[in-house]
């Protein structure tokens, strides 16, 4: 009975997954662009910018995501009407911005001082130094930590249901409530779907990490 239902409902699980994936792609993109900007500001910016990034980070990491979603959809949505999906992209995207900014900041601060100095000595402007020396190295080092962000946001998309975006997890809870039970079985199927998506994404990111690897750093393959 569980399996019949699951088979019958599978297309809807897939539809839920598809919506979740669109949301994921949008919010990660937003978070990447803004997060990178914010991290540069927080490491190299004027103190006012640093204060701004600090506040932004505190607020958007600190407020529970459900509250963010409600605030954006009902609060800001009151002034600028937006669909639940757009509200979810913005709320979760800004949240992701704060988290990604921390990832990039950590990586940027681990770039060797000497190289930054060498770039400046050659006449590279601050911006050029950031662009050509700091970011290429920091972004490489961010790939690993960024897989965390990808994994965690993938599942955070399910929170968007609070403002009516029906994605995978919500579709699954439909099935659970229809069956009045079988929680484990149904969620195992959902978990498997998330797992596949997560694995595919991370496999891609790890492949990128290996491809971009440069000699000279600690890590697998060292012989000592």
């Amino acid at each position, binding site marked *: 009975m569980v399996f019949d239902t699951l088979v019958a409902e599978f297309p*809807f699980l897939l539809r839920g997954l598809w919506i979740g994936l669109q949301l994921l792609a949008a919010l990660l993109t937003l978070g990447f662009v803004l997060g990178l900007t914010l991290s540069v500001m927080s490491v190299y910016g004027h103190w006012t910018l640093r204060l701004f990034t600090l506040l932004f980070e505190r607020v958007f990491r600190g407020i529970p995501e459900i509250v963010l979603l*409600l605030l954006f*959809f*009902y609060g800001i*949505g009151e002034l600028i009407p937006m669909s639940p999906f757009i509200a979810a992209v913005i709320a979760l995207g800004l949240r992701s911005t704060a988290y990604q900014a921390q990832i990039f900041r950590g990586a940027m601060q681990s770039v060797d001082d000497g190289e930054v100095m060498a770039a400046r000595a050659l006449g590279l402007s601050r911006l050029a130094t950031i662009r050509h020396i700091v970011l290429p190295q920091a972004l490489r080092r961010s790939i690993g930590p960024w897989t965390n962000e990808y994994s965690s946001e993938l599942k955070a998309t399910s929170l968007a249901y*609070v403002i*009516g975006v029906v994605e995978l997890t919500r579709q699954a809870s*439909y099935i659970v409530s229809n069956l*009045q*039970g079988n929680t484990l079985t149904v969620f195992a199927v959902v978990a498997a779907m998330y797992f596949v998506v997560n694995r595919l994404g991370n496999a891609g990111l790890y492949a990128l990490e290996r491809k971009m690897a440069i000699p000279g750093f600690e890590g697998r393959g060292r012989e000592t």
Partner: protein
Amino acid sequence: QAQTLVAGIEAAFPPWAYAEGGEYKGIAVDAMRAIAENQGMEVEFRDMPWPSLIPALANERIDLLVTGLNVTEERNEVLDFTIPWWENDDEVMVNIDSELNVVTALCCGATIGAQGGSTQNSWVEANLVENDAIDVTLRSYENYVTAIEDMRVGRIDSVIVSTDTAEDFIDKGREVRIAGTITQGQPQALAVSRGDPNNILAALNRGIMELYESGQWQEIVHSYAPYATIRQIPATMPDYVRTYQAPIAGLDD
């Protein structure tokens, strides 16, 4: 052009509202469709969790709530209820092989589960937990389904759910039984924003009555819950509800 109403539901609440095959179904959903048709309105449904439905109503993202909504004093402060179309009692659920009866399931060291924020939860709190003579522990769950699962594991002794839910559980073949009933006569109704800004309360009330009187209501209910006893509509109307004071919109005018 007919007015389109957006009805908020929580579609994980069979047999009243749920989703299957990509469509919203259930007694409340079908009944609402019938009412809308009858009253010359269009209706569309939007599934949201509880914490979002109220702000959605306040922000006019939705026009009314169509879900297993119990009429309570607190809710009366924020919402305007239609006439009640159902009454519910609460059932004490225990494992099918449990030796507990309705008394032992609710006293003497028992651990009772309920869905957090539900009327059942409040009832246990007010009548059992706060009474020092009765030694019980209340566990509130995000979802009563998990409470039932936890009871199956054996961590808790009983779970209190509404009659409809209890019947649905048994209907679906879960290995639980009803140890006893707590008679509540808890009315259920639809609701709109306080003050009825869209002026639909009268139409809804009229629609409910017409649905009931035409016998369509009974058909709908029985198509989802074959053994359910149909209550008279309007069911018990508590005095404290503002919209139940005469004249009642749609009935008395």
